[in-house]
């Protein structure tokens, strides 16, 4: 299996404060990996560091290309879609414009049109609301829109920051089902950061656990789910 993303000795800083203390991890091509950890462990920071949205040092290689020194928008254009915490909706624009923005770096007009249709198949609720202002959608619908917007890039790697945040359990189930489908059918490698460890471990095949800016455990999702310590601290039984 080839490695799609290779992270070595990643350190990140908020001003004087160091948030990540040398992370090492790999994502295999086609895998669905989850990064687990408590509040403030550095999960969001890790995703932001990959997209160079925060000052960091260390080596990150995506598909052979080194990401150091590239701007956020250039990293995105390599095929890394990032669904940020809070969903990053363009609130005063229509649902369809949000989808078009996802594909703004692409040149193939026909492909974009057919991809928008494909997104409406994946997420029928977006089709029903395609002229509506995106800010008026419910939280779950906005999360669907954020995932769809990210997919419009035709990414090879998708980073998701707490997609379950603030959503009703049933909607989270739906969303995770769709993520699994995207991973299998569209062959998109996915890294999902979650506080909802149980759901994330059901979905993922690989998992890393992060504590105060360090990776403290890694393995297959089943191994991690069966680990006594993890069960006690993250799954609560």
């Amino acid at each position: 299996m080839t490695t799609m993303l290779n992270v070595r000795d990643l350190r990140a800083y908020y001003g004087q404060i160091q948030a990540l203390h040398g992370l090492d991890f790999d994502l295999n091509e086609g895998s669905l990996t989850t990064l687990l950890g408590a509040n403030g462990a550095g999960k969001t920071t890790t995703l932001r560091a990959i997209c160079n949205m925060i000052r960091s040092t260390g080596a990150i290689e995506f598909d052979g290309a080194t990401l150091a020194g590239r701007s956020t928008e250039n990293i995105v254009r390599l095929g890394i879609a990032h669904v940020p915490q809070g969903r990053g909706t363009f609130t005063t624009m229509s649902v369809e414009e949000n989808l078009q923005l996802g594909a703004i770096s692409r040149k193939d007009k026909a492909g974009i049109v057919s991809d928008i249709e494909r997104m409406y198949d994946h997420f029928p609720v977006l089709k029903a609301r395609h002229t509506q202002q995106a800010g008026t959608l419910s939280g779950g619908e906005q999360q669907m829109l954020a995932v769809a917007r990210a997919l419009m890039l035709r990414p090879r790697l998708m980073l998701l920051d707490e997609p379950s945040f603030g959503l009703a359990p049933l909607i989270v189930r739906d969303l995770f089902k769709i993520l699994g489908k995207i991973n299998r059918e569209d062959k998109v490698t996915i890294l999902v950061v979650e506080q909802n460890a149980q759901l994330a471990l059901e979905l993922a095949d690989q998992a890393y656990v992060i504590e105060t800016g360090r990776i403290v455990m890694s393995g297959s999702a089943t191994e991690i789910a069966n680990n006594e310590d993890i069960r006690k601290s993250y799954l609560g039984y």
Partner: protein
Amino acid sequence: MELFTNQILAGIATGAIYACMALAVVMIYQAIDHLNFAQGEMAMFSTFISWQLMQWGLPYWVAFVLTLALSFAGGIAIERLLFRPLAKAPILTNVAGFIALYAIINSVAGLIWDFTIKQYPTPFGSSPFLGSQLISTHQAGMIGVTLLLLVLLYLFFQYTRVGLAMRAAALNPESARLVGINTSWMIALGWGMAAAIGSIAGMMIAPVVFLEPNMMLGVLIYGFAAAVLGGLTSPFGAVIGGFLVGIFENLAGTYIPGVGNELKLPIALALIITVLVVKPAGLFGRPTVKRV
């Protein structure tokens, strides 16, 4: 009654210029969250360039189009050289930058073209429009040019990919970067467009106020009033604000005793303060909510 109609129409004509200035101000405000105090001077300098081109023998519309292009490039250059380095600086640093730019452009224009008042041509003539005594062909031309500009801008922002990207970058810069938009260039593009729009305002008003380095001072203050009235976050509001301020200025000058020409400027300032006190977001702006 004829006086009243006349004042309204004349107000709409000058309002068209204020609308252009307000639009330029709003464009930069949307991009970088600061008011460009030098917007008027940039427009004045552009107008001088067009005048110079005509002095060298170019026909009006050729000079007009060339000036648009040069202003666009100049706006981008100012952003790249002066304001990009200040992007993360505190607000006062930016204000100082704008004031410096104001003083520099004003003095350089005086140095090159001196401070004597110059005649500036109008391509529309100044005979009565359609035989009516209400407005002149130049005033009608000003309104026409502004409306055409508005339609073109609307089409640009609504139906082109660059327009969509610019709106996205202004609305949510972080999300815009995450879909691959180079937000820094979108800001530069906003500056270029603002400079070009301002140059149109300058070239349209110059036949009325005559060409000299201080010609845009009053116009810019009215432009600010228009932008504040319409809402600094709404280009559409800025335009409506421009027309309203133009009409208001004329009616106040005519009907409120003692206002006349001398007190027209304080009226604009009074308007700004009133709007900021009563409805800070303006007529069409959306109030910004910040989490603290």
